[in-house]
């Protein structure tokens, strides 16, 4: 059995970053959210949030729709099917990793 530290390397690096993980977790729990909500949620600056959103969009995990409402720009973001699968896979991997880390710790304590 591989040890949990080795398996950490198999985690999706795009998702293994707090801001991007927060964004995808939030988007997986709703149909869509706007830029303002994600900014409040992550506490990131406009520029930094734009960068994180672009990375997720380039990976095909989210879909970004920009429009003008009453002459003001409005950006709505929704998760794609690939994004939903990726976040579910990530959480499953992390749960598995936690289980392995617990059993690995117990084994090393008894040896």
């Amino acid at each position, binding site marked *: 059995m591989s040890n949990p530290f080795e398996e950490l390397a198999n985690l999706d690096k795009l998702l293994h970053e*707090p*801001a991007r*993980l*927060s964004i995808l*977790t*939030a*988007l997986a*729990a*709703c*149909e*869509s*959210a*706007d*830029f*303002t*909500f*994600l*900014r*409040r*949620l*992550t*506490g*990131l600056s406009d520029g930094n949030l734009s960068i994180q959103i672009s990375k997720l969009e380039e990976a095909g995990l989210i879909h970004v729709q920009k429009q003008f409402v009453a002459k003001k720009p409005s950006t*709505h973001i929704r998760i794609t099917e690939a994004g939903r699968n990726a976040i579910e896979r990530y959480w499953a991997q992390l749960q598995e990793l936690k289980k392995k880390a617990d059993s690995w710790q117990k084994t090393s304590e008894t040896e």
Partner: protein
Amino acid sequence: MSQSIEQIQYLTQNYSRLQGLRAIPVGIFVLLAGIWANFAAGNLGMPFVLLLITWLGYGLIDQYYARQYGKVTTLRQRRIQEFITGILFMVLALVSFVFDSAQVLAMSSVGLVIAAGILADFWQNISKPAYSFEAIISAALIAMLSLLPLAGWQWWHWVGVGTLTNGILILSGLLMIGMGVIGHGRLTHTLKAVEKASHEQSI
């Protein structure tokens, strides 16, 4: 880690529900409708003025939340569920109001419907945190005061209100305002906690 994730899911799934300030114009409307029915029921134009002010107030608060906190569109299934529940309780409230006006029973069926509505709203909250105490307390208080007349306690006279229905409306309005303020506090508190966790990279 899991706590922050749960908070993000809770915030996103219950976002419109957590926008407590929305309940304030509705609470003020119910409160003033109760006061109007008790003291100035002759002026029939007043409920329409109150309704208009409530609608305007609600719109302004909606704008405030959209600008300050952003917008979230909940999942379709959940929107349908909320719509059906809303319509159901609106019909029940109207029927019970007619029922209470006919004074068939010595209790408030409007009060029981309002209490049930508050509880239904509470149960619809996904991953509800343990500190959503105000909904349960409010529902229990309204239900208890709705049923007290069955034991012969005409509590509304003690506070200078003419009828049980008016007393229930005034009380419900006050509780809605209180729940709204607490709900808004919970939204800002949870947002700050999530934001802090993101900054500390503790997710």
